[in-house]
């Protein structure tokens, strides 16, 4: 993870001047087994904006509402109040197919009942553009090849998905999302089962893709230092409340992080101006 202050500064400038693409406006939600019962979980009104080329990380302990917020952004859930606007359209109101052309979701893990090869898996990303039976066109193949190349997974093209490593599989899953040619890329704990090298590779790839393809990337994760290093904005959540939105340097306040994560932490600024978090022992 090398420090590249000039690149980071340029990136921040680009992000600031780009148009607002995603606007989360006072979005709230409540889970209840049935309408007559009190909700088991409530997400309080949350707002933030994201621009093209920007990476926004949603951080918080377990059950803080991160994944619910991601589902609301994806349009899979209808907000109780407020709205999520993507390029002027409410994501929940978009037809399923149109939504899949604009929003790609990378889940924690993709379960396969029957094995498929990596290229077959990536071609699934072209489904939103297909007609009924969807026999793939030359354009689909070119997009899929390009998507695999963009995440450095071309050599894996003919491999079976159940015979590649977790890191390789995550790259192929990301390639499928890229094949959707979305505006918005959503990732739900994509680093969960990856070793530290694969985690850095994935975040590097996201950084590069956000800059090159002008994606807006929203990533839910627990990795404080990766977020500090690669995100442009952080949305900090706790027990269904959005506590703060801002740059990593602005959000990573020691007292705030200690209160949210219930641990003794230290926060330092690295040579590139990015915050780094360390866990302190009980004795300090």
């Amino acid at each position, binding site marked *: 993870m090398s420090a590249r202050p000039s690149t980071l500064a340029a990136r921040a400038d680009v992000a600031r001047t780009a148009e607002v693409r995603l606007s989360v406006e006072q979005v709230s939600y409540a889970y209840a087994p049935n309408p007559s019962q009190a909700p088991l979980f409530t997400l309080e009104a949350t707002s933030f904006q994201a621009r093209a080329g920007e990476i926004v990380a949603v951080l918080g302990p377990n059950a803080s509402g991160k994944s619910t917020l991601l589902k609301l952004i*994806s349009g*899979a859930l209808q907000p109780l109040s407020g709205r999520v606007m993507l390029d002027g359209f409410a994501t929940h109101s978009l037809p*399923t*197919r149109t*939504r*899949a*052309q604009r*929003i*790609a*979701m990378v*889940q924690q893990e*993709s*379960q*396969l*009942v*029957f*094995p*498929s090869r990596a*290229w*077959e898996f990536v*071609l*699934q*990303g072209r*489904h*939103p553009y*297909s007609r*009924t*039976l*969807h*026999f*793939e066109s030359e354009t*689909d*193949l070119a997009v*899929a*090849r390009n998507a695999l190349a963009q995440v450095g997974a071309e050599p894996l*093209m*003919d491999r079976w998905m159940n015979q590649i490593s977790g890191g390789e599989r995550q790259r192929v899953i990301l390639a499928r999302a890229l094949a*959707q040619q979305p505006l918005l890329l959503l990732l739900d704990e994509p680093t969960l089962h990856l070793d530290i090298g694969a985690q850095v590779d994935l975040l590097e790839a996201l950084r590069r893709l956000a800059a090159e393809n002008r994606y807006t990337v929203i990533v839910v994760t627990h990795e404080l230092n990766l977020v500090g290093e690669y995100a442009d904005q952080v949305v900090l959540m706790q027990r269904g409340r959005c506590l703060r939105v801002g740059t990593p340097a602005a959000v990573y306040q020691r007292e705030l992080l200690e209160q949210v994560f219930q641990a003794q932490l230290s926060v330092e600024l690295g040579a590139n101006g990015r915050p780094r978090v360390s866990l302190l022992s009980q004795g300090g």
Partner: protein
Amino acid sequence: MRPLTVGRVLTRCALLAVVLFLVIVIALKLGAVPVSLYALGRDVIRVALHQTSELSSDYRLIIFDIRLPRILLGTFVGASLAVAGASFQALLRNPLADPYILGISNGAGVGAMAALLLEPHIPLAAGIAALFTPLGAFAGALVTIIAVYFLGRRKGEIDSNTLLLGGVITASFLSALQMFLFNTVMGRDLHGTAFWLMGDLSTAQQPIVSWVVRFGFFAAAAAIYTTASDLNLLLAGEKEAMHLGVDVRRVSLVVYVAASLLTGLAVSVSGAVGYVGLLVPHAMRWLFGSDHRILIPTAAFGGAIAVVVADTIARTVVAPAELPVGAISALVGAPFFIYLLRRRLA
């Protein structure tokens, strides 16, 4: 990267169509009246072209009025069960799903019996009355798959093990219910019950029922085929499919109704022929891959071939007596089910 093309689907289907034709000719040959394969092949084509004047009446009666309708019924029963099995495996994300194992065939059987019992009490035109049993079987299959689906759900998602267990229990309960109805209300003997429960193609069908089975197969299989690329994505789960642009609710509705119709039609004319919906889709996946755009049509041909072969064995192996066709398919299918289960657990 070798994506699936229309040409590849058509050539594989053509190959299987040739195999099916040969199997039908061999099945026509086997039996009490000896005929040469060459003569049979020639005469089958003559019958297909409606040039039957050159055939002797006895020969035509045995080969083309008795054996051929039974074999054709077997092809549609086999094709229906195999397409239904492939569809249920995708929708339920379970490689062990099969209309028989999940109790859907037995549900169709109970529905068919209920229709048979109700039919005399409802004033219907003769032509419509004949369709009452297939309709009852379809309703029975649909109600059973809905019940099994909800039995198999845990925390809002389908759980493979709970689903299988729920299906097996449902099958056992409905099988007992059929046996009870057969032996009490309907007054049939145990021999007839066993043939119904194990699947049997020996009962002659009214022409209108045969036509409904054929038309129903083409309509339901075509409806399922329009969702073939959606089924590929549903294998990854409903949420993932939705994020890839699949209208999960519409596809599920179309496929559950169409696959229940296929099961109901097959059961209404043959009883519960087991394991065809399990064995054949797996064999076709092994041969041609798991893409549903090629799996659905090849499973239809494979199912037809499998049931015609099984029925030919059933009616010749202990001649002049007969075995239920389901006994032959279960002899092969049950060990294969155990093999798949062991592999999945491993």
